[in-house]
């Protein structure tokens, strides 16, 4: 199998409309003509268009992503493979990545979110890792928006049903409501897997004459790009317009997971790649490109679910739960036996070649014959114009009115969409399956024990979109810092992050400016905190009618807890002294209290001082490991009073607060200054703690003691914990059940 007849001609030529519908610009099409020296066939046009799409080629983002720090002694595999890999010691490694499934989840929330979860798990087990934890970062529109409830309900049950069926615990995430996501919700899913460091699988198809094998589900006409065009070209006029939504099949994915891991224990695989976006096309192109070989596929052997599928459709189908593998010669029988055992399709569909060409045959015809170099590295790269955004003014305590009652404001805020309990969400996720979840959702980071050891893997997802909307640079820095802080609060050594860069259209200079700022901010924080980026994903064009989402550089971090006997947790016991570590300056710009008091988020978000961040975090980790502190919680959304209230609710104990501060009380208690933690210590160890903080250069201020069953602040009536708990717990369930009978 090589060379063969020249690719068949497309009848009548390709119209400009057809080219545009494939998302190719005139320049890009000219570039195709030049590379090929002829007109592409329709199949070739489809292949090039998906390979050159933003999603596969990162053409707008690539030059900026390259500036991110990706190295460190803990990094085994940085960006470039299906997922990043970090060292956990003892010959073990964690494999992780986050990915967006935004648009599909808006169109069909249940299936869109479900297939997003399925896709990210495949990225992880493709590398030989068993998925051990899932996370999800969700941004919905305003609670008042007509579609929000339906979207929340569908997305959450889609994520739950897929992960639950797979038997992978979903141990946390984050959820925002903001009207700027009304027309473009974000569903970012993260998966973490465990692998033996010497059994990591990659995608490169190194070697000529090797069998290319298709496994998993059959191929259907799911999610074919340019579907409007495809239906016009290929369908009977009578046939209903084909849906482009993909339906997830978690049961098959579970079988695929077990079958792949079983085969990976054998010495059979040269390279393996899941079929994600752009399915067979991108998986085969990437494997060949990375291996420096050519590839020839005969689509006659592709297992199809529907009749009469064309080469174009097979190459562009996004049917889920499929994988492509290149096997060692002669390994087909053992592989086939395993996949048959798991009742999955198995087919040899091609061979690697030394021609450097990507050749697709179907029904005896050559449907595509393209130079691989043009598909992967030959994709266009753009340095798009980017406009800087003016810095916003700092908001002072005088700009934001004080409340009548601090505790009253606290209760109202905690009984609202930004701060209420997310229990309604995470109770729909099996967060305990695999029997290794040692910190369940509801705390700062989810933690799973590394099976069979006393080590723990801490995971957190973070970004504060309103900060990024004000200042993408500071916002992205903050996202990295908050993630690092959450891992630290669990007692973990933060290892590395994955990111999911959700933005509007890069063709608009102000959006591109946000992107560039965010990458710079993220890079700066990652470098300062030795917290490199090992994998990630970019999702652009999140806008409707010219209105873009706020820049949302979501960060997913992984940390290692050397011994889960020394883990941080946020429930305070009675009789403890409470101390805030890190400096409180009363930053109210873009704070939740500001919105509560004024109805709007304005001004500069709180800046992050990365040196202070590092000092405070290193101190906290040490205090946790030495057992000095009995509870820890970082200070984030809503500020100090919210952090304390969350700890009190978790510990089912009241607190009495008083603090000596020159700041206005509302700025002190609700300011969102970064780099802070609240810790609880036995009164007898308070002095020791304060001394250690002083010698570490970390500001420390005692703010109260625990006990009783209410929150108390001088000069205000006490706020009973029971009442606070009801408002905090009930907002989301009440919201979700409103509109039902």
């Amino acid at each position, binding site marked *: 199998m090589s060379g063969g007849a020249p690719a068949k001609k497309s009848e009548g030529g390709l119209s400009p409309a057809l080219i545009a519908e494939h998302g190719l610009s005139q320049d890009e099409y000219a570039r195709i003509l030049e590379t090929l020296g002829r007109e592409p066939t329709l199949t070739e046009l489809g292949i090039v268009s998906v390979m050159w799409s933003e999603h596969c080629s990162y053409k707008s983002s690539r030059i900026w992503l390259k500036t991110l720090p990706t190295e460190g002694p803990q990094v085994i595999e940085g960006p470039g493979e299906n997922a990043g890999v970090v060292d956990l010691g003892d010959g073990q490694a964690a494999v992780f990545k986050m990915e967006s499934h935004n648009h599909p989840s808006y169109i069909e929330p*249940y299936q869109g979110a479900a297939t997003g979860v399925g896709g990210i798990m495949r990225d992880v087990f493709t590398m030989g890792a068993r998925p051990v934890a899932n996370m999800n970062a969700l941004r919905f529109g305003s609670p008042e928006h007509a579609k929000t409830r339906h979207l929340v309900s569908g997305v959450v049950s889609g994520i739950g049903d897929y992960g639950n069926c797979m038997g992978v615990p979903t141990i946390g995430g984050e959820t925002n409501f903001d009207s700027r996501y009304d027309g473009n919700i974000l569903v970012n899913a993260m998966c973490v897997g465990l692998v033996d460091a010497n059994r990591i699988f990659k995608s490169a198809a190194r070697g000529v004459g090797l069998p290319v094998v298709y496994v998993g589900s059959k191929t259907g006409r*799911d999610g074919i790009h340019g579907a409007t065009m495809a239906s016009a070209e290929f369908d009977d006029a009578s046939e209903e317009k084909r849906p482009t939504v993909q339906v997830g099949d978690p049961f098959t994915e579970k079988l695929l997971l077990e079958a792949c891991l079983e085969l990976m224990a054998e010495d059979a695989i040269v390279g393996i790649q899941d079929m994600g976006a752009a399915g067979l096309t991108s998986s085969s192109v990437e494997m060949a490109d990375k291996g420096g070989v050519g590839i020839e596929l005969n689509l006659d052997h592709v297992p199809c679910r529907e009749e009469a599928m064309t080469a174009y459709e097979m190459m562009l189908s996004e049917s889920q739960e499929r994988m492509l593998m290149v096997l060692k010669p002669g390994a087909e029988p053992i592989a086939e036996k395993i996949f048959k055992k798991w*009742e999955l399709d198995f087919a040899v569909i091609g061979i690697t070649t030394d021609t450097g060409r990507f050749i697709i045959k179907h029904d005896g015809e050559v449907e595509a014959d393209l130079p691989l170099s043009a598909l992967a590295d030959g994709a266009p790269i753009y340095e798009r114009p980017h406009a800087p955004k003016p810095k916003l003014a700092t908001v002072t305590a005088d700009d934001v009115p004080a409340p009548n009652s601090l505790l009253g404001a606290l209760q109202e805020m905690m009984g609202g969409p930004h701060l209420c309990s997310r229990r309604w969400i995470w109770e729909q996720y099996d967060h305990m399956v695999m029997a290794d979840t040692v910190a369940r959702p509801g705390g700062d980071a989810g933690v799973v024990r590394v099976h069979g050891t006393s080590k723990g893997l801490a995971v957190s997802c973070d970004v504060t979109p309103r900060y990024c909307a004000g200042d993408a640079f500071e916002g992205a820095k903050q996202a990295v810092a908050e993630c690092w802080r959450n891992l630290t609060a669990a007692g973990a050594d933060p290892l590395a992050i994955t990111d999911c860069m959700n933005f509007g259209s890069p063709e608009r200079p102000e959006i591109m400016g946000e992107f560039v700022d965010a990458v710079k901010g993220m890079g700066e924080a990652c470098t300062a905190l030795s917290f490199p980026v090992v994998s990630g994903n970019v999702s652009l064009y999140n806008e409707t009618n010219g209105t873009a989402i706020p820049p949302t550089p979501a960060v997913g971090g992984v940390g290692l807890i050397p011994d889960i006997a020394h883990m941080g947790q946020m429930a305070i016991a009675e009789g403890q002294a409470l101390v805030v570590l890190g400096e409180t300056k009363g930053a109210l710009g873009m704070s939740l209290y500001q919105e509560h008091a004024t109805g709007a988020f304005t001004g500069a978000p709180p800046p992050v001082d990365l040196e202070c961040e590092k000092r405070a975090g290193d101190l906290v980790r040490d205090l946790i490991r030495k057992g000095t502190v009995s509870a820890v919680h970082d200070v984030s959304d809503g500020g100090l009073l919210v952090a304390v209230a969350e700890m009190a609710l978790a510990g089912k104990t009241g607190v009495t607060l008083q603090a000596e501060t020159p700041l206005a009380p509302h700025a002190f208690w609700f300011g969102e200054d970064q780099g802070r933690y609240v810790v609880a210590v036995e009164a007898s160890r308070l002095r020791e703690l304060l001394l250690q903080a002083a010698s570490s250069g970390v500001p420390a201020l005692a703010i109260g003691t625990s006990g009783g069953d209410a929150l108390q602040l001088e000069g205000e009536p006490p706020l009973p914990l029971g009442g606070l708990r009801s408002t905090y717990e009930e907002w989301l369930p009440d919201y979700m059940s409103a509109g039902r009978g």
Partner: protein
Amino acid sequence: MKARITITLKQGVLDPQGKAIEGALHALGFGGVDDVRQGKYIEVALSESDPEAAKAEVERMCEALLANTVIENYSYELEAA
């Protein structure tokens, strides 16, 4: 009136349930089963007694809630209660 509504997946949409049932039927020895598709069946009792009005009401219900028209089709029969 009573509406008997049948909701099925659109052509070409993956039907994992149907596929799994098919596999189970084969395993149970029902070799003559070529294809299985699973859908939903919903019975709605309506106080409306005019067939035309009931028809319109059922269609609105299907569009608004009962069927996910992104991936599903619906059909129905009406019957005097």
